């Protein structure tokens, strides 16, 4: 791939809520030039173009690509359209950044990745929290050996159903999210899941999973997943019954790291060195020092105007654009994209298998896991 230094031409398809996050972060990137937005609803394309000062708006992808010739297209449409639209855009000669979840299932992800390879274009998926400043700092600390070898990972997503998006899904039985093979979870668990897989050595650990429906709802709202690898374990909890929170805890042989993505804090707990009762003073002192570090760190970031909810998204965009321009490696490998898609298939398959046929709240759409694995 040749190296390019001119601004990268960026377009976006699908001007719903998450498009705002994309467009606001694209605008922050000096070498990105947003050239067009597209949506089947002209009014949605209009509002995005006007608010983010994008010069062109379209209701047809073909027309958009032909007119504006973008290098990269961001795809922020509903999940069930991702595979077909990504392949279309690849065929039109664009690199594609796909909002999570990448596809409906692993078979589709293989298909899309194969298409990208065949036309010599790339795809990237919106696993943006892996590029969040807190996660990047945590990984540096882990690499420095502060918690020893990683043995267990816990990821929690609190997703109040009365939130902006959740309430739309809950109130509309025809909402597209309700029709996904993994329902609400398919649209949301990518984030807590890849925060586990990023540090999990096993490609496909053993999985046990269970979903549950809260009273007053007619679709599964709670999910619990356990993973068992060769030397590591993981657990994922998704709950609409918890306040909003994005928390990952990494347990190592020498300590534990607690990441709160919303508070942008990192709590490090290490094994105490002092004996007996002295250890009971050492532990809170460690926590006090840690709190001071978080306060100082966040104050400094605040003063630098460096606290942004979608900070990871901006970094991921920058790295992907740099790769497209031949200035760096691809930020998320195709194998990793497919790995997460396959894990999601297996999670939903396991949940379905635990449901009695009469109580199955989801339409059965079992992915062909074995076939997908053999294609890897």
């Amino acid at each position, binding site marked *: 791939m040749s190296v390019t230094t001119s601004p990268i031409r960026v377009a976006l398809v699908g001007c719903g809520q998450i498009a705002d996050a994309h467009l606001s972060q694209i605008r922050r990137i000096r070498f990105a030039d947003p050239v067009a937005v597209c949506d089947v609803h002209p*009014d949605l394309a209009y509002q995005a173009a006007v*608010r983010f000062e994008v010069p062109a708006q379209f209701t047809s992808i073909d027309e958009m690509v032909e007119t504006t010739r973008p290098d990269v297209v961001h795809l922020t449409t509903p999940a069930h359209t991702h595979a077909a639209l990504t392949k279309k855009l690849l065929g039109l000669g664009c690199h594609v950044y796909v909002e999570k979840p990448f596809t409906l299932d692993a078979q589709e992800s293989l298909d899309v990745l194969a298409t990208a390879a065949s036309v010599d274009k790339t795809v990237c998926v919106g696993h943006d929290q892996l590029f969040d400043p807190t996660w990047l700092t945590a990984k540096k600390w882990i690499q420095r050996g502060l918690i020893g070898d990683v043995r267990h990972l816990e990821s929690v997503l609190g997703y109040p159903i009365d939130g*902006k998006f959740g309430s739309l899904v809950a109130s509309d039985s025809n909402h597209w999210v309700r029709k996904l093979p993994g329902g609400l979870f398919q649209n949301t668990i990518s984030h807590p899941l890849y925060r586990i897989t990023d540090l999990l050595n096993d490609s496909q650990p053993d999985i046990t999973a269970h979903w549950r429906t809260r009273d007053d709802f007619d679709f599964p709202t709670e999910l619990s997943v356990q993973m068992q690898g060769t030397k590591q374990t993981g657990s994922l909890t998704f709950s609409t019954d918890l306040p909003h929170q994005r928390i990952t805890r990494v347990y190592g042989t020498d300590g534990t790291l607690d990441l709160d993505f919303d508070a942008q804090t990192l709590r490090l707990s290490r094994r105490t060195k002092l004996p007996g009762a002295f250890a009971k003073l050492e532990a809170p002192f460690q926590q006090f020092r840690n709190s001071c570090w978080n306060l100082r760190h966040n104050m400094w970031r605040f003063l630098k105007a460096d*606290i942004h909810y979608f900070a990871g998204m901006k970094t991921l965009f920058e790295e992907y654009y740099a790769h497209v321009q031949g200035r760096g490696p691809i930020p998320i490998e195709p194998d990793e994209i497919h790995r997460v898609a396959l894990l999601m298939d297996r999670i939903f398959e396991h949940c379905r298998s635990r449901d009695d046929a009469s109580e199955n709240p989801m339409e059965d759409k079992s992915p062909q896991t074995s076939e997908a694995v053999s294609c890897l």
Partner: protein
Amino acid sequence: MSLRALVTGATGFLGQRLVRSLLEKGAHVRCLVRQSSNVATLTDLQSQNPTGQLEIVTGDLGDSKSLVASLEGIDVVYHLAAALSGSTASMFLGSVIPMRTLAEAAAQANVQRFVLVSSLGVYGAAEMRSGTVLDESAPVDPHPEQRDPYSFSKIRQEQVAREIAAERGMSLVVVRPGVIYGPGRPLLTSRVGLSIGPLLIRMGGRQPLPYTYVENCADAIMRAGMVPDIDGETVNVVDDGLPTGKTVVRFLKSHGQRIRSLWVPAPCIRPLAALAGWYANWSEGQIPAVLTPYKAMSMWNRLRYSNDKAKRLLGWQPRVSIEEGFRRTIRERRE
């Protein structure tokens, strides 16, 4: 009376009052509601007003096929349904796109009139001189994208409705109510100031607030669908004797409400907003641009408001005074 009306948003704060007004006039009122809507209040209205006829149909404003049946035999469409909060995209999804579908279906069904309930917020108040009378001749905001999602979606909604009406020869009347208040809605609104947690940042205090009591407003909207020969007209709806922020706060305090507030004098609003806007821009949105000079002047510019056209064209009078409206609102809250 044999008017057959379709009302969207009928289960809402304003919609219920409009349905009641129409039933009192003996109209046949078809309410288009979502499957998940609670229609108990509507059915109560029918039993209270036996002169009119209520019909409830479930449907989706985004589904043009189901709208065909809903519009069958309808003379007037009163379109009140709208998203009231959320991101700009969700406001467009909840307001503009359904309105486009409904207006096209209504034009196809040859309804006699389409009444679009918009908002007084569509005017370009930021660029008007202090003390100016805001009436229907004032220009619509030229930069709605710099405003709040609600005003932006309402401006776009009007544009789309006018385009469809012009293309399809449909009779359109746009009603632009001010801030609608009444039992079930607070008297303290963003026109008085910004609420930050338990604290109210009072902005100025002497500028008139374009309030309208919910029943007065429903009455004006009903008339907009009935009065002949007003096709293509736009009508503002505000009450007489408008209050100021100061009088609202004083009234609430005198009725026992505890308000913790911080006062920003009128001359300080613009500099404060300029500072907030500069910081939001400099920090690339670390603290979002909730306050900019444009937004501040759109909201708190000291204007006067006219309801002359509504009175003249619709034969409307606000039957409930501001004082009585305030009393009813407070009484309901206590009960």
